[in-house]
């Protein structure tokens, strides 16, 4: 990877982190648990990396197996995270 490509990635990191701090400090304490389970689901974005890693044909089986393990785990995070967050948010009602 070239240095300039790295710098672009660091830009993205810094700006996204800043945006994250701004947005999340506005989430009310009432919603902190769904926020955590929801961000659990978002951290399942590793699924993208897992898909790429598990799609290697032939080369090294270890590499592929690691990718598939990652794929199962990341899918659990994504599906479980979003479903349980929805289950919780559904309960928050105002009468």
């Amino acid at each position: 990877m070239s240095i300039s490509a790295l710098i672009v990635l660091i830009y993205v990191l810094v700006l996204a982190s800043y945006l994250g701090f701004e947005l999340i400090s506005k989430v009310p304490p009432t919603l902190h648990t769904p926020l955590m389970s929801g961000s659990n689901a978002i951290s399942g974005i590793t699924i993208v990396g897992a898909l790429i890693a598990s799609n290697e044909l032939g080369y090294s089986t270890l590499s592929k197996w690691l990718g598939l393990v990652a794929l199962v785990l990341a899918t659990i995070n994504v599906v479980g995270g979003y479903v349980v967050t929805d289950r919780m948010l559904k309960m928050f009602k105002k009468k």
Partner: protein
Amino acid sequence: MTIGIEIAYLIASVLFIIGIKYLGKTKDARKGNVISAVGMVIAIAATLFTLEVLTLLEIGIAILVGSAIGLYYAQKVAMTKIPEMVALFNGFGGLASFAVALSDYYFKRDTDLASLDAINLTSIIVSVLIGAVTFTGSMVAYLKLDGKVSGQPITFKGQHLLNLLLLIAFVAASVLVFLDPSQVNYIIILIVISLLLGILTVIPIGGADMPVVISLLNSYSGMAACATGFILSNNVLIVAGSLVGASGIILTQIMCKAMNRSLVNVLLGGFGQTVAAGGADGPAVVVKEIGVEETAMLFDSASSVIVVPGYGMAVAQAQHVIRELMEQCEKRNINFRFAIHPVAGRMPGHMNVLLAEANISYDKLIEMDDINDDFSNTDLVFVVGANDVVNPAARTNPQSPIFGMPILNADKARTVIVSKRSMGKGYAGVENELFGYPNCLMLFGDAKQTITKVVSEMKDMA
């Protein structure tokens, strides 16, 4: 084609951001979660398009297995067990990033050794470290929360020295990896050290500090995804990862502030131990008891009531009968609210979820800072399963281990009734001065049973 995929990743990133923005308002939160999920589906679909030769069978099976496990767990889990689930999922996230980093290392080593340049190796090493620490750390946190391992802090002599030596060994092994990237043995050393570090950093932390730990591990799982983004030069991983990283850090700070502890202090661990040693002396508190009937009468004659719930309420499964109590009070036009301390429950915001599950409207759940001034003109405060968060010692006694912790001013109310199983100490192992106050009455017994009796007494009165 590649441009299309980059745009899809961009859209996914924007949807994650909008999703989190919507999570800031209780009425829009559910929509926000759906928006974020749509972003995830777009990211996954775009990735599938990039794969030139699709090994669909294996991928399909892996996704199916993962979805089935995730779906089953998410639908079965009890709301009291959400902290355990979040801890476990943090660990899965960390392990997934760790596995992707390793997979990428093996792939490049076998196909194109030259592509393992300094930047790439650094990303892989960081990803392995954060991923493995998140994984084992989360597993220990899960076992502690679930009671499979004692919640007591586990400390031993030379613990900090051992951690330091492991860190030095990690740096040394990293240097060796840089010198000869083809040597798998060095990578294996890195893996073992990282896994050990995860265990060693969480075992000295006591059960009461678990809200801090799972928030921090939540942040780590995001950072792990971020590090993987650097390996794959993938922006959507970096954006999503840093959003989660930021979220975890903010929650960690909030939890530390609510317990008046610094993060370093929490991480060094051993909190419960020092307290247990110092808490034995001091005069025993003399308390006044109250029965079910008098409690019902006090509720009946009050015009304002604040309930202070703690995790003990959820353990006793008393939240549903408290809703009935609320209905009885509201029939009598009593102003009935809940005061929620930031560390009530086992994770940030946990108490709100438990009360929402019992069908209690969220506008009745008031945060500490918004309700603390109202206690002094409240007739009756009902403390259920909470202890340390109403202990006035935090304000008055500089010797107390919880001194300086922000608390709910329950003691300022005209009358305080504390529902408690017995005269045990709070989670932090500290004697509660409040119980000896002249305006404080103890309602002993299982919370669910006693409150059920109070409710039926009130029904008879009406």
